[in-house]
């Protein structure tokens, strides 16, 4: 027994001295549990602050009330203005709002048309323009949108009936009509008349958000005519595969490049670096060699992965090939910079691989490689924009999903190359300061 205890103690001692193993055992799972918990459980399971472009062309009170309800709903953030080509901030019209969605600035737009609700209407007519670049995101947005609108429909319906009654019969006749209806209902259903009259006392000034869930009813669903128009991705061969290929490809690219970059440690340990440096080769040349090798390896790996997507899932990689190549090169450069940063700051291969795995999994989780970023908490959505994965995934979506042209993908390539430049600068300074070889 003593021997077994000694053996257990020995293993714990080794384990607590192995930082990468400790990180993989505790820190990585803890961070991922936090992320998944934030998404699928935790204090709130409903996403908040989803950007929706919005126009209200209707002058009806119902439309205005719906706008104010959507304005105060935490799930959505209504965007009503945009900056036009002249740099001026202007309100959306139908064409500009569609362009806004097409360009990927928002995943959906809700338009309340001029004739959304008239005195002769029996329901509310709305237009919903959307870009299903991410299926989960779009299903969630549509679900939340319908839930929010439908929850208001009973009140809207009752209010509209009152409004129509007043318009057609006048206020006194209308009240008389209500009392008669109430007494008939009371007679046959045994409900107190005053209670029934209270139900009819709806006004557009009342809070319409009160009892949303309880009033959901199929009957009311007929009152809403939500016309959905898909703006992007209608002709995509395999939407699911096209949407997900970029994220997975970037994650595996990061793993590959990290391993390739940290091979510097193994080469140094084995004495190969000393041997190479005893030849007419400088340290800078070694770093350049490693850097260009990693970029080319990254480009080859991404190309192979996209080609695999083409062969097995019919993903269209050829109709926008030039722009795909631009994003591939930008992503490979950024991932290589990440790998070299690890090599510059870590002291051993094990440390670099442990930290690399942690960062790659975290970046993939928050950067949109595994699931859409909109379901993450707001502060993590902000953080995600600082990751290589986010900009790579968005870049690939621009090319493959949105068929964006070179000008449209430049911001994505630009950010990736910007990250590359900054990270490389930091790495170079650290390589000069440190003593990797």
């Amino acid at each position, binding site marked *: 027994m003593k021997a077994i205890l000694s053996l257990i103690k020995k293993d714990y001692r080794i384990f607590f001295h192995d930082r990468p193993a400790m990180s993989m055992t505790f820190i990585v799972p803890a961070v991922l549990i936090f992320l998944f918990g934030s998404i699928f459980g935790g204090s709130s399971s409903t996403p908040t602050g989803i950007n929706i472009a919005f126009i209200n062309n209707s002058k009806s009170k119902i439309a205005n009330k719906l706008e104010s309800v959507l304005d105060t709903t935490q799930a959505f953030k209504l965007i009503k203005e945009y900056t036009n080509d002249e740099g001026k901030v202007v309100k959306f019209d139908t064409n500009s709002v569609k362009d806004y969605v097409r360009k990927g600035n928002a995943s959906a737009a809700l338009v309340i048309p001029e004739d959304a609700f008239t005195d002769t209407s029996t329901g509310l007519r709305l237009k919903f323009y959307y870009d299903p670049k991410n299926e989960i995101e779009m299903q969630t947005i549509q679900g939340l949108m319908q839930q929010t609108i439908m929850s208001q429909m009973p009140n809207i319906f009752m209010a509209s009936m009152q409004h129509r009654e007043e318009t057609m019969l006048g206020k006194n006749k209308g009240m008389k009509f209500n009392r008669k209806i109430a007494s008939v209902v009371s007679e046959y259903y045994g409900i107190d008349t005053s209670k029934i009259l209270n139900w009819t006392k709806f006004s557009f000034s009342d809070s319409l958000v009160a009892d949303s869930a309880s009033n959901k009813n199929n009957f009311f669903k007929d009152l809403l005519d939500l016309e959905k128009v898909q703006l992007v991705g209608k002709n995509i061969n395999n939407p699911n595969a096209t949407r997900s290929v970029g994220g997975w490809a970037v994650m595996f690219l990061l793993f590959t490049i990290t391993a390739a970059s940290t091979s510097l440690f193994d080469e140094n*340990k*084995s*004495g190969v670096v000393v*041997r*190479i*440096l*005893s*030849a*007419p080769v400088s*340290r800078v040349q070694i770093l350049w060699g490693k850097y260009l090798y990693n970029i080319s390896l990254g480009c080859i790996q991404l190309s192979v992965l996209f080609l695999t997507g083409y062969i097995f899932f019919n993903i269209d990689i050829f109709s926008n090939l030039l722009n795909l190549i631009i994003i591939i090169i930008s992503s490979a450069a950024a991932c290589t910079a990440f790998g070299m940063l690890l090599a510059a700051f870590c002291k051993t291969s094990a440390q670099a691989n442990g930290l690399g795995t942690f960062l790659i999994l975290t970046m993939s989780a928050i950067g949109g490689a595994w699931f859409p970023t909109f379901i993450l908490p707001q502060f993590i959505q902000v953080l995600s924009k600082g990751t290589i994965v986010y900009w790579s995934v968005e870049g690939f979506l621009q090319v493959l999903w949105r068929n964006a042209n070179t000008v449209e993908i430049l911001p994505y390539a630009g950010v990736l190359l910007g990250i590359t430049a900054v990270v490389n600068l930091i790495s170079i300074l650290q390589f000069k300061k440190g003593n990797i070889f």
Partner: protein
Amino acid sequence: MIEIKNITKKFHSVTALDNVSLEIKDQEFFGLLGPNGAGKSTLMNLLIGYLNADEGEINIDNERVKKDNLSVRTKIGMVPQTIALYDDLSAFENLEIFGSFYGIKKNLLRAVIAENLNKVQLFDRRKDKVKNFSGGMKRRLNIAASLLHDPQILLCDEPTVGVDPQSRNAIFDYLIQLNEEGKTIVYTTHYMEEAERLCSRIAIIDFGKIIAEGTLEKLIEKLPYEQTILINKNHSTEDKIELFKSFGSLLNEQEKYELKPFDHLKLSDFFKSMEENGISYQSIDLHKPTLEALFLQLTGRRLRD
């Protein structure tokens, strides 16, 4: 010629080399002998320009050796202490890679590789992955990789560590042959037997300082005695340690006592005393002193301590 002038190299607060000066002539087989951590590898790393010295300078044929002078490196071949090869590649592929850094044309390089593989008796195994080689084969390939550009100087940093005696002898023979063909060889080791066997001139280094330098004979002459007395351990000698110590400093080895006699000792007095104490002459042997004895004399420590 290699000129090492007043070299000092520090790593933080540790002085690895302290004002070291040496001259190594062309075609010399020069040994750098010292215990682990004495500064041998640091000096090797300075000789290839892997490190820059804090003070002093190194010149090879009047050309300064430093980190940013790449041209001087074509004169040097480096055999690192570790087996600096790619395990998953074949012997031939490894040599192709390392040869390519010297700008040798492809066809010529292939011929040079074949020639060097033949010399280290690995040509038949050229397509095998290095990871399948024995320790001795890897060491031989390690040397071959340093000779592809036909350097005039070969720096060997403990090139026989972990090698079986047979392979070690093969490596020694090859290095001697290279030296006879005209190459200057600088050989570091902490095995005095290796230095004694191979090197025409030896520098002994300890704590970053050269504490003795010269040919083997000149170094041994520095000892205050001409012979070491070896006494076999047996029933008649085991309890006589104090007696032995009265004649000199005693090393208690596994099977023998090694006695370094005091300055004034007359061997006749020693043998007479042994006889009086019942120790037979057959238990005693006289040997020429080794570098180990010199190191002990100079530092008070043994080379392998």
